[in-house]
């Protein structure tokens, strides 16, 4: 009985994870913009790989397999947002083209692309001179 429930849960998790990963692959190809592509890629792929690893952990019911699978899930959930944020910031810095249906770009004009600092969001602070960021003297 327990074994049957274990197998059904594991199969369902594996199918869900596989379909999510396939969806991430399709989203990478079909989305029109780097930022939309990242939105499809990072969330769907980390959730899909997490589901597949969880399926392996449920089906094995062994402490060595489960520890490795849980470590893999935690690692994915920790690193996928960091990597996605860094590559999105780099894409905005080097001026990747936005989709032509984009409604608003709230960061437009606020990034100092030379010093890589964010300036003048929110409070109407005076525009800093070139070469000095809000944190002090940046090269």
């Amino acid at each position: 009985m327990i074994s049957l429930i274990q197998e059904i849960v594991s199969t369902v998790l594996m199918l869900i994870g596989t379909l999510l990963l396939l969806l991430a692959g399709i989203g990478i190809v079909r989305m029109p913009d780097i930022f939309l592509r990242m939105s499809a890629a990072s969330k769907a792929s980390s959730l899909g790989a997490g589901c597949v690893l969880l399926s392996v952990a449920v089906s094995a019911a062994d402490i060595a397999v489960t520890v490795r699978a849980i470590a893999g899930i935690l690692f994915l959930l920790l690193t996928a947002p960091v990597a996605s944020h860094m590559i999105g910031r780099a894409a905005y810095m080097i001026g990747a083209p936005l989709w032509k249906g984009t409604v608003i770009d709230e960061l437009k004009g606020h990034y100092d692309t030379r010093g890589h600092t964010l300036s003048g969001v929110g409070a109407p602070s005076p525009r800093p001179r070139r070469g000095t960021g809000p944190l002090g003297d940046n090269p």
Partner: protein
Amino acid sequence: MLQTIALWIALPLLSIAVALPVIRLVRGPTLPDRVVALDVMGTIAIAIFATYALINAQLAFLDAALVVGLIGFIGTVAFAYYAERRI
């Protein structure tokens, strides 16, 4: 049952999914597009390794999956630094 499903349904779908970002890797107009495609391919590779470990009951493939995930993360961060400081 699970191993049959993993072998005949999950692995073909995962191989299709890992082949799709190659199109973006070749066609991508900018460098970050290619980096995102590589990142997704690494994540799908983790799932393929886990499925293969489930089919063959080999524990070592899970360690390989962890190492592939680590290398993919470090590669993405390194490419992001490279793309940002290049100008």
